[in-house]
């Protein structure tokens, strides 16, 4: 573990000075000149590696040391190979000098030297060379030679074509396809390593090599796969493992629907028709070209794996491997079916059987996801019932496995990558948003990115309002999920359990309905519940639970995404409804420190935005907005939202925004705001609250002035208030404003408005400007354009 010793070692390595380092280099060169492998050599190499790792900047070693280290790569001692490769990978190669490995060297290439070659390959040509050499070595290798030297070849090739798929030529691909078929399908079916039957007293002639076995101990009756065991393994059985391990990536990289289409055109018509018939049956697969043959063998291999996974493995590690193999087999089948549609009919019976076998066992959830992917990709070809699959994936998994981080990642990834397809094939997935949000509520930091991508697709006209409520109550959902898990784990009477009150409430039948609503799987049973405030009180003690706090931090982010999506939908009726929801919920939030403040900030931003885009919303919802603005209590506990409500009323309650705006409406709004302004500026704030923010007061004053400028009868009333304000503040401090500077600012604004209102016509054009003034038109506006044009002409015609 990390200790002082380790710390000082790292510091030493970091702080080593140049002269000392040079001395160390020369000592190391001397050590490496000695033929024998000594402890000191290994130690020094290890220290060199530490020095190189610990330093920020990559170093260049002296040429002599470089050479010595290079020669280590072909040393018979593996320790030297490892260290040589590790050290050289941490340094820059000497400039202008390529790593030259001649053909003879390459036949003795070991895995550590290959790692170095890969890390220092500078161009596609380097990689192509390496590729070509390795494939040649696969083709014609000496019968003697250590097994190891062949086995790393496939992983190296895999890395090469990850970095640059074009490195392999068509010939290489063909050759490798043939070899892969051999290894996958025709590997030895007897045990390697000299294991044989007969026992101790049997003579050499009666010793038969033992056949391979399955994971449950029975003798294997079919070809060798990764799920077969033996006392020892032959070389081609090892290659079987390596080949299967890279098979999916190979198929994804080198096979594609377009590839086969091009190939089909090149072949003659007769051949083409033979191929399409033959791909349905496997018996005549020898007639197939290499790529198609590999596809066929891959299909058979995967089917065999799926059968083998039905056996009960004797070791736990093997059961885990079986699950991984199921996933891989299903994915590969999906891949080959995408290339060759005729394989779908062969694959589906197998898939259906597998689904039937696993769908009732939640421990196989991660295997069922690739099966769902298969159904999604190919379900149209065969008339399959996909309903059961969606019900399981959307309905059951999130509800019961929300706390499985890996399943959460994979399910959300499935949604993200297949969104378009799911929207057309299974549009009902949107109804399951309460279920999906459980992943977010449980582990917000891990999945918030995914939800930023997914949320827009969950916002529809039918779900928008309920979704907003659900997002706002996400911290409550987080708390409820914690309680749900605790409730199943802890006994009923456990005095040590934290959160006893909320847990009791969770178990109380009287409140069951509240929690069940939060835990619902599907939308549609109501936007929210009546007794929301009761729920918030019951969960009050959850406000400092880490999961709840993290969840609360992600809600504002998602609300922004939500509103951005909703605005694009351009549904005025919906937007009007959302304004009401914002007003209502601004006081109905779980009481977590700074949560309300953050939500209010989001609300204010979007309220302003919505009203700017659709000014008629203000008239539509004038009743509720006035009710909100007329409640003095809102000034103190919902300051941000209140300020913005007053602002939008002042700005958009006018005939130019909406012709339905009557004088009566303007007057009633004026009266409501005037009353509040009077109240907050005539007395001390109620006990327990601080003074109203200056911004509220100035916004109220501006709103009153704007409204007065539209209905000139109101001007005297407004002017009266403003002049009274001046008088009152001349006496010095006031009870409703703590800061002197703020008071001065307020009074100054009051004076400006008062003098503006003295000229009603001017006031009207300043405070209620026509639309074209507020939307700049730059060069399209003739008055503004003239100077710009003149300036442009002048600069063009004037000689430089």
């Amino acid at each position: 573990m990390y200790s002082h010793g380790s710390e000082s070692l790292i510091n030493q390595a970091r702080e080593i000075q140049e002269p000392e380092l040079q001395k160390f280099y020369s000592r190391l060169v001397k050590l490496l000149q000695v033929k024998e492998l000594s402890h000191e050599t290994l130690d020094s190499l290890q220290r060199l590696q530490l020095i190189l790792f610990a330093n920020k900047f990559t170093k260049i070693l002296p040429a002599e040391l470089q050479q010595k280290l290079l020669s280590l790569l072909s040393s018979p001692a593996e320790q030297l190979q490892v260290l040589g490769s590790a050290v050289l990978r941490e340094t820059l190669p000497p400039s202008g000098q390529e790593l030259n490995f001649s053909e003879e060297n390459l036949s003795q290439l070991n895995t550590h030297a290959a790692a170095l070659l890969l890390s220092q390959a500078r161009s596609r040509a380097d990689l192509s060379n390496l590729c070509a050499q390795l494939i040649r070595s696969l083709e014609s290798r000496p019968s003697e030679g250590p097994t190891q030297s062949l086995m790393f070849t496939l992983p190296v090739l895999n890395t090469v074509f990850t970095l640059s798929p074009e490195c392999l030529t068509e010939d290489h691909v063909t050759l490798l396809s043939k070899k892969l078929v051999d290894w996958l399908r025709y590997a030895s079916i007897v045990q390697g390593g000299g294991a044989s039957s007969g026992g101790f007293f049997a003579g050499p002639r009666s010793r038969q090599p033992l056949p391979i076995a399955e994971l449950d101990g029975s003798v294997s009756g079919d070809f060798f796969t990764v799920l077969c065991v033996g006392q020892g393994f032959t070389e081609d059985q090892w290659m079987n493992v390596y080949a299967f391990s890279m098979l999916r990536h190979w198929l994804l990289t080198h096979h594609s629907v377009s590839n086969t289409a091009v190939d089909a055109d090149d072949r003659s018509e007769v051949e083409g028709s033979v191929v399409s018939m033959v791909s349905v049956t496997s018996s005549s697969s020898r007639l197939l070209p290499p790529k198609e043959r590999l596809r066929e063998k891959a299909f058979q291999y995967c089917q065999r794996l799926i059968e083998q996974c039905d056996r009960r493995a004797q070791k736990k590690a093997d059961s885990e491997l079986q699950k991984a193999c199921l996933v891989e087999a299903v994915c590969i089948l999906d891949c080959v079916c995408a290339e060759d549609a005729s394989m779908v009919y062969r694959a589906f019976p197998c898939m259906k059987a597998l689904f039937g076998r696993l769908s009732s066992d939640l421990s196989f959830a991660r295997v069922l996801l690739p099966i769902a992917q298969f159904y999604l990709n190919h379900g149209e070809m065969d008339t399959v019932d996909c309903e059961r699959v969606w019900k399981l994936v959307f309905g059951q998994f999130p509800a019961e496995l929300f706390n499985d981080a890996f399943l959460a990642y994979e399910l959300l990834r499935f949604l993200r990558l297949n969104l378009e397809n799911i929207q057309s094939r299974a549009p009902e997935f949107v109804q399951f948003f309460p279920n999906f949000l459980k992943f977010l509520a449980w582990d917000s930091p891990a999945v918030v990115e995914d939800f930023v991508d997914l949320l827009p697709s969950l916002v529809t006209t039918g779900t928008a309002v309920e979704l907003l409520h659900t997002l706002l109550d996400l911290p409550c959902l987080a708390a409820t999920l914690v309680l749900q898990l605790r409730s199943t784990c802890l006994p009923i009477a456990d005095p040590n359990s934290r959160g006893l009150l909320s847990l009791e409430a969770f178990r109380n039948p009287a409140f069951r309905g509240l929690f069940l609503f939060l835990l619902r799987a599907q939308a549609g049973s109501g936007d929210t519940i009546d007794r929301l405030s009761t729920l918030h009180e019951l969960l009050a003690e959850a406000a400092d639970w880490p999961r709840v706090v993290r969840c609360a931090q992600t809600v504002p982010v998602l609300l922004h995404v939500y509103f951005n999506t909703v605005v694009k939908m351009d549904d005025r009726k919906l937007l009007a409804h959302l304004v009401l929801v914002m007003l209502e919920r601004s006081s109905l939030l779980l009481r977590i420190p700074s949560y309300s403040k953050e939500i209010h900030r989001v609300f204010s931003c979007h309220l302003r935005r919505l009203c700017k885009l659709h000014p008629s919303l203000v008239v539509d919802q004038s009743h509720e907005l006035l009710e909100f603005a007329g409640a003095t209590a809102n000034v103190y506990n919902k300051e941000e939202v209140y300020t913005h409500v007053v602002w939008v009323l002042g700005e958009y309650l006018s005939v130019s925004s909406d012709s339905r705006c009557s004088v009566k409406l303007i007057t009633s709004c004026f009266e409501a705001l005037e009353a509040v302004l009077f109240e907050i500026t005539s007395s001390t704030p109620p006990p327990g609250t601080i003074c109203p923010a200056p911004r509220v007061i100035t916004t109220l004053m501006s709103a009153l002035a704007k409204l007065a400028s539209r209905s000139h009868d109101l001007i005297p009333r407004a002017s009266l208030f403003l002049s009274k304000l001046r008088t009152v503040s001349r006496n010095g401090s006031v009870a409703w404003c703590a800061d002197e500077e703020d008071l001065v600012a307020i009074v100054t604004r009051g004076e400006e408005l008062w003098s503006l209102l003295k000229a009603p016509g001017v006031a009207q054009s300043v405070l209620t400007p026509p639309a074209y003034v507020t939307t700049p038109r730059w060069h399209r506006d003739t008055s503004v354009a003239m100077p710009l044009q003149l300036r442009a002409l002048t600069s063009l015609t004037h000689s430089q």
Partner: protein
Amino acid sequence: MLKRTVTINLYRSCRGVTNKIGHLVLLRQVWSAVSLSREASGRLLVDPAPGQEAAAVQDADSGVMRLRAGDPFTGETVVLWLGVHSLAFTLVCEPHENLLLAEGTLRNLSQHCLESLHMLGPGSEVLLKSSRIDVLLSRLLPHGQLLFLNHRFTQSLEKDVASFLLK
């Protein structure tokens, strides 16, 4: 309070990011993911004793996170992590790779690292014998390739590694 975390990055050095700054970005993200996860679960961390490596890996916190393209690897990646007390093991995968297999591989590798380098004790072998990790990786995760190894194949490779360690 968490002690300082040593993050061993089982990265496949040939892919994606090739500079140290990128790896530091990754380490910081893993570190924050581990601490957030532990804080949320509220589990009490017990000091595992040397000799209990298997149990430590069994009980370890684990998680997965998605890194978008460019942050810091050139393509989108998936990062699996395993937190064993104050140590974190990370495995960076491509999106198309088999995560079940990756998870099993990570656990297996972590257990081997803990055992062969006595990481649960106070020593500094992890710094001075890091070649052991290289050999381990060259067998169980050769050039970054995840392998489908049943218990027999794994045993064979482990024997090979053990013989290296004895020298």
